[in-house]
């Protein structure tokens, strides 16, 4: 059988990591194709419902990456993200999701190489952990479905 190809979602901020990933491209540094990026204005925007949503829909791993401390385009967004991550990690432990499935990192607009490393390391790590199904099994699909979070 062919090797397990993990599905990984990257939630990145527009100003540092997205630009960093662009630089990875312009510098033609190769990395694993398992990762797809979703752009946010700032890591501060990423609440953990979104992360849960990703797991629910079959993500095997997640990368959350933004500006380095003190470099946030909005000055403090990434600090909120960091605090939220600490809380979320406990929630993950509680709900039995390996914390290794989420990679939280700072990648600046100048760190094309670092982005490639972050991706490759995460892919490798998640590949070892194997596919992630538990959540889909237990998740009450309606609970987090789009309608559920729809404000209208």
């Amino acid at each position, binding site marked *: 059988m062919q090797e397990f190809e993990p599905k990984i979602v990257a939630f990145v901020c527009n100003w540092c990591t997205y630009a960093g990933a662009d630089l990875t491209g312009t510098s033609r*540094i190769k990395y694993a194709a398992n990762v797809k990026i979703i752009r946010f204005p700032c890591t501060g925007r990423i609440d953990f419902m979104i992360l849960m949503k990703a797991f629910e829909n079959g993500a095997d791993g997640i990368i959350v990456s933004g500006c380095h401390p003190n470099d946030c385009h909005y000055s403090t967004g990434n600090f909120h993200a960091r605090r939220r991550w600490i809380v979320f990690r406990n929630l993950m432990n509680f709900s039995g999701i390996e914390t290794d499935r989420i990679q939280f990192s700072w990648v600046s607009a100048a760190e094309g190489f670092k982005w490639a490393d972050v991706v490759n390391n995460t892919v490798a790590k998640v590949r070892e952990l194997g596919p992630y199904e538990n959540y889909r099994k237990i998740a009450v699909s309606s609970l987090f479905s789009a309608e559920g979070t729809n404000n209208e």
Partner: protein
Amino acid sequence: MSASHDTVHPTTQSGQIRMDTGVIVNKCYQCGKCSAGCPVASEMDYPPSLVMRMLQTEEPVQMEKLLKSMSIWLCVSCEMCLTRCPMEIDIPALMDHLRQKSLSAKKTNPQARKIISFHKSFLDSINYTGRLYEMGLIVDYKMRTGAMIQDVAIAPKMFVKGKLNPVPEIIKGRKKIAAIFNRIHKEGK
């Protein structure tokens, strides 16, 4: 930075040097601060910074020159170059490397004979007694170099001052020391 960026190429000479000594010769930008501070640079055929340049060329000819040079034997390992090098290049380690290379390639500069003989006598003394037996060393050294009269003047004075030990101190573990020498000798083979 990704690993692909600092891969070592043992195929090249500088790659080899990097593997053996950890020194990246291409880091040197020839500022010459090492040569400026080197206590023996004025006596060297190739001052430290020039040695670096010659290694950078990757030319076998230059390496040849270095192995046959006086510089590598005049270096007193005072570490001044390393201390002041803006690129923190470990030139002393490089010198050790070149000396040993020169020895094993049997290319040592004839004028360095005295220096090398001294080192040899020194090591022999350790090999036989486990320690340095100065009197023995001097005698042995004189036998090797034939520099009979050198320093004979001060010898008696040293003797009087109790600075020369007539009998060698021989340590109990001298066999162990000899064993160490043998093992390394075999390694070398």
